[in-house]
């Protein structure tokens, strides 16, 4: 083994808001190129876990590693900032509500971070933006403002914005939950494309069908713990735990109605 750590390594993650324990000793290892889905009812802690990976919601206990770098290392303020800004460049994140920068055009949304953080020239940054926007099928809208796009288009631009930093891992926090049903597929297609390119991905989702078709591994979380974990066909077709079964039954009933 050349690398002592898994690619993404979450060790004994704990998180409390006051007396409320949101994450109770969760460990998760993700290898390079793996795609992991995290499912579970709302309030199960799945988004908190995802947001802990780039320290948006810092853990109250445990460690998070990306390759050989600890993300949530306790350091004096300045060193912490430098450390976290460096690792965040390697972790792309896509949000439920897109969070595109409304004052910037699509192009500038994509080029902002590469220009500021990697010192790309205008020409280089534009080429990068065109490349990434072509990949997500949004090149025609490069000079639009986010307010002129549909939800699905916004999310595809948000994915391009994250990809422009050439991240090693992509985190998706319910990327399609805020979309109208007919717009979900275009975003799913982009995510599938990334999966085919062997991007390492951790996906918090309510789309069971998508999770089953794309992921290597599924985690079912409830009340701050991982209740069950396994390959998608086992989790979705033949779950062992009663809570997993209940959740999937309710969820499928809800999706069918």
């Amino acid at each position, binding site marked *: 083994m050349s690398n002592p750590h898994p690619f993404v390594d979450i060790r004994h993650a704990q998180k409390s808001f006051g007396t409320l324990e949101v994450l109770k000793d969760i460990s998760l290892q993700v290898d390079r190129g793996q795609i992991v889905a995290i499912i579970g009812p709302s309030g199960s802690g799945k988004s908190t876990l995802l947001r802990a990976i780039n320290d948006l919601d810092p853990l109250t206990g445990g460690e998070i590693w990306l390759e050989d770098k600890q993300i949530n290392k306790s350091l004096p303020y300045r060193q912490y900032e430098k450390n976290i800004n460096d690792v965040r460049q390697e972790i792309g994140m896509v949000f439920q509500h897109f969070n595109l*920068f409304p004052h910037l055009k699509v192009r500038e949304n994509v080029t902002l971070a590469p220009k500021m953080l990697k010192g790309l020239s205008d020409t280089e940054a534009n080429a990068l933006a065109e490349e990434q926007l072509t990949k997500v099928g949004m090149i025609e809208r490069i000079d639009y403002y986010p307010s002129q796009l549909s939800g699905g288009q916004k999310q595809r631009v948000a994915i391009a914005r994250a990809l422009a930093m050439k991240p090693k891992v992509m985190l998706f926090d319910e990327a399609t939950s805020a979309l109208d049903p007919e717009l979900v597929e275009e975003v799913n297609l982009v995510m599938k494309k990334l999966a085919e390119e062997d991007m390492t991905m951790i996906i918090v989702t309510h789309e069971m069908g998508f999770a089953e078709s794309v992921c290597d591994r599924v985690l079912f979380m409830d009340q701050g713990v991982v209740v069950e974990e396994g390959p998608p066909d086992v989790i979705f077709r033949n779950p062992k735990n009663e809570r997993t079964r209940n959740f999937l039954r309710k969820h499928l009933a809800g999706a069918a109605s």
Partner: protein
Amino acid sequence: MGLDFSVIPKYLDIVLLGAVWTIAITIGAAVVSFFGGILLAVIALYAPKIIRWPFQAFSFLFLGTPLLLQLFLIYFGLVQIGIDVPAFMAGVIGLGLHFAVYNSELFQTSILAVDKGQAEAARTLGLSRMQTLRKVVVPQAVRDVIPPIGNNMIALLKDSALVSVIGVSELTLSAQRAIGSTYRPFEFYVLVAAIYYIINLVMEAVLRHVERRIQVSR
């Protein structure tokens, strides 16, 4: 004694020159108050206490004392401790800082009103706190607060008349000079009021144009 507006043309160049000075002071002070306001807002919201407190004391000083007194202090007072500020500069600084404090209150509110997801998205890309403020949060906060800032700038234009007391030949003082030679206060004050009003209308038009321009990027 009736009104006689025929005296105006002879003094029109003085009055119009005064209008130019009023516009220059207003623009200068507006720029100071705009960027000063952003700076004060960022300090008030994010700076450590040791920096924040002196700036807040300073802000309170500007909010809690008359602008007229502030202009006297900057122009007549500072000379005594060896800082000789020319009258025009004293006017720009005094008006500018005074309104920077008012603008800062508006900027603080609008910075806090920017959706938290915006800063999160920027930080997630790897931008530092300062880069996030500069490129993502402040531009949106500024955009959202243009209308009330515009109102402050119109108040600033009107308060620029106070600068006449430290001897800047702006609109109000030039009217007083014309009146001194002609003893025709009504005519000249009406003229000057009309000019203030016209400058005001132009400012409002510019403001509306800016507001329309930023509509699309919401």
